[in-house]
């Protein structure tokens, strides 16, 4: 058991190293002229030459990679060409907003997913409808759902704001944990306001993952409920609810968790688009603006942060699966 956990954590560091290598290669090998790519289209020859020396492009690739890791260890991701600030500083400003959005979205995706999964196991007319709605939801691009939501819930009904994190103009440029901060301080009006802003983007972002989670849960529940172990449970006279919760859900947990891990990873890519649609001042919007200006250090910085989160989350999910399935624990 302990060995498996240690192995899993070590392999996480391996994958993280791989991520840095991939980003290093994308940055230093893929573009015809990496330094030009670093600056984008409009750079003077003097700038290029100076940067070339500064970044050590005259050295061999392995040496460059070691230098790259060294800078990374000091949290140096270069300077944004657009904001003229260190990329790390920019990221630190935008991470809280994205974090809040992602967490809210994961919570909603989990709740919706479990709901979809359980609805689908009921026999009767509902099953076909749930399947239909599931496929429709997972077919819609997030930005399309987002703009439909804005047109309907803001423009037509006026229930929810169209974007941004808060109605308070003073805090509009805030870089902290708005929602969680207010929650901690029990500012109920503030929580209500931030929550209203959070609700639509988080739900839009959660739709795709919730369908995938629901589908996995429904599939594994359906298989498990056909198993003899469930007959055994019923023979013991357990109520259907107890059978479902104690045996069905418990056994469906493993595959569902694994799918949830994968989906949270995809959610981290989807967050970029959703932030653009809802003017959410987070990493995604920062990335979108950086793409427009070919701000290469900034782009790679965001990819690094989101990619590393993906790797860490998947490791955590793997470890949770160990807890869910005793059979995995006794393997080597």
């Amino acid at each position, binding site marked *: 058991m302990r060995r498996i956990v240690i192995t899993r954590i070590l392999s996480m560091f391996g994958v993280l190293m791989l991520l840095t290598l991939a980003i290093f290669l994308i940055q230093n090998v893929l573009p015809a002229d990496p330094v030009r790519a670093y600056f984008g289209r409009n750079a003077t020859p003097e700038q290029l030459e100076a940067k070339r020396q500064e970044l050590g492009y005259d050295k061999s690739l392995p040496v460059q990679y070691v230098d790259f890791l060294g800078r990374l260890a000091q949290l140096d991701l270069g300077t944004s060409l657009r904001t003229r600030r260190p990329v790390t500083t920019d990221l630190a400003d935008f991470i809280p907003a994205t974090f809040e959005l992602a967490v809210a979205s994961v919570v909603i995706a989990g709740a919706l997913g479990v709901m979809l999964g359980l609805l689908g196991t009921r026999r009767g007319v509902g099953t076909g409808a749930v399947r239909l709605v599931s496929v429709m939801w997972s077919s819609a691009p997030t930005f399309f759902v987002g703009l439909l939501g804005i047109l309907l819930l803001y423009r037509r009904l006026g229930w929810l704001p169209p974007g941004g994190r808060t109605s308070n103009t003073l805090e509009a440029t805030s870089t902290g944990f708005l929602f969680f901060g207010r929650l901690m301080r029990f500012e109920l009006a503030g929580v209500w306001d931030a929550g209203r802003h959070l609700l639509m983007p988080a739900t839009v972002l959660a739709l795709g993952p919730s369908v995938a989670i629901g589908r996995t849960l429904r599939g594994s529940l359906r298989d498990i409920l056909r198993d003899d172990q469930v007959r055994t449970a*019923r*023979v*013991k006279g357990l109520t259907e609810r107890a059978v479902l919760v104690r045996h069905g859900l418990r*056994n469906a947990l493993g595959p569902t968790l694994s799918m949830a891990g994968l989906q949270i990873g995809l959610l981290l890519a989807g967050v970029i688009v959703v932030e653009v649609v809802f003017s959410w001042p987070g990493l995604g919007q920062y990335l979108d603006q950086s793409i427009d200006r070919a701000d290469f250090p900034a782009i790679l910085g965001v990819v690094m942060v989101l990619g590393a989160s993906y790797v860490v989350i998947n490791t955590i999910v793997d470890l949770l699966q160990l807890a869910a*399935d005793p059979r995995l624990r006794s393997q080597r």
Partner: protein
Amino acid sequence: MTSDSSCRAVETIATVSDLSVSFDTAHGRVHALRGVTLDLRPGEVLALVGESGSGKSVLSSCLLGLPPESRRTTISGSVLVSGIDMLSGSASQRRAVRRRLLGAVFQDPLTSLDPTMRIGTQLTERGVSTARARRNLSQAGVPEPKQRTRQWPHELSGGLRQRVMLAMALGADGKLPGPGVDAVFDDEGSPVLIVADEPTTALDVSVQAQVLLLFDRLRREHGCALLLVTHDLGVAASIADRIAVLYAGRLCETGPARDVLADPRHPYTAGLLHARLELDEDAVALPIAGAPPDPLRLPEGCAFSPRCEHATSACRDSLPELRNGDTGRQFACVNPLGPEAGSVTVGAVAASSAGAKLATDAQPVLTIEEVAKSFRAPGARRDRLHALDGVNLSVPEGGSLAIVGESGCGKTTLLRIACGLLEPDRGSVHWADGLRPQLIFQDAGSSLTPWLTIGTQVAERLRHEGSRRARREAAVELLERVGLDRRAARSLPRQLSGGQRQRAAIARALASSPRLLVCDEPVSALDASLSLRILEMLAEIRDELKVAILMVTHDLAAARHVAEEVLVMYLGRVVEAAPASQLFRDPLHPYTRGLRAASPTREPGRLAPTLQGEPPSAVGETVGCSFAGRCPDVEPGCRERTQVLEPIGVDTRRQVACQVVVQKAVV
């Protein structure tokens, strides 16, 4: 509960009345049960016997109040347990019956326990105390119950898991809450009925006998009834008081086990009895003609009539109802058999008669000498699993040899080495003229390429036949040789039945003109009548085509039926070798004797296992006789010296690896 119903409950604890179950499928309506009426009396063992597809599992599910779940299921009739209808009663009433009165054991011990829950939790879920759970475990023969409750299902062997299921079944207290009966769970009570659906089918012979005897003991101690669902009349015969035979969803015969087995009234029951392979020397087996009916196209009249030699037009026109016979017997047959028809030697063509001639001077087609093989043990870093250790054997030209043993004895490894699919660590394998033997797999379905027609698969081994057309024709000839017709050549494997697939696999093997067919449990997945036909065909191939047979089986009777010589294996070693007739008449090694005693026969109540426990793991080095731990005749010297095969008596083919037996023989 009124006094009236409690009075009835004394004579029957469960009543199935005119139960019919059918499913709508894409291809039409399947009638699983068609008007079954059955009583269960307190404390009795009722064996429900039928082949696959007879509806026996549906019946047992209905008895538990858990009929097959589907929108397209139609159910009529009633199933009463202690006066409560398990099909139309309220959900809470049915749940209460299950919790307080019933227990169940299912076929596959790997899937019937929840893998994510500790044994103890699963036992106490019903509401029993921890002490009661431990007591039930030890009653079910689970050693060290206290430790077991903390273990997970995957940490236990199959036999132990079935015992845990049984312990769980014992958790019911037999008290249905109602007027005058306390709702508190009684920690001393016993279940009223245990439903066991093929509880021993997945187990080894010796463990099967232990579990069956355990059932027998527990129902005596606890006074609970047992519904034993099985496809094997031998299992039914071992502990049943009464037998009910099911065919195509209808009961054909019920009655006291002794009477039904001794002189069956229904031709199908007689057919089942005849088709069963027996260890008995004079018993000859005869398959039932024809095939079970297509569940979508059941005949108008008696479903067995197309296969019945006594059938008349009356049988084909109307469904025969169950009629009462003497001594509590019932049968659904217009022309029942008389008492003398039950004797089993009628007009039999015995495949085993071929076993008489022994070709001792013939050249061996396969010689295996001092073969050893070990694997890396799963979950262990250094220890190795010793699958085979110093095994010798030879198969004479046109001869037949069977290897008998339980799971984990190394018999499959030996087969793979014999076919050259696996390299031995030590020792040599020699094929006469370098001709590779052909292997017949246990699961014929997976041994055929799913997307190629049978004809293609046979023909591609006939390269020497010249033209494509000639190969096609030769392939059809081979298929006809094994009893398949021209159409089979154009079929894909999934379009054939299990028995037909096994025939196709045999035809394909013959296409390589082998001198030896190596068969890995060739019939263990088939119903009795079908497996008998396949075994007869193998014997025929041996006699007519002079192809030697090496067969691995866990079934002593199948070995006796096909083989001239038999090797008995235990944990990677041969413990006894003998001509088939001698081995089964007079087994010498304590393990062989135990296996023999543990094999079910159609004689009622003749089950007496001498084998305790289950085979130990073959991981790591062992000193001395590996059977010593389970041996009833063990002596101190057994654990010190590795036992080697030594000849006994004048016939050098008779060998045994047991110092106790050898010493006795010398004296």
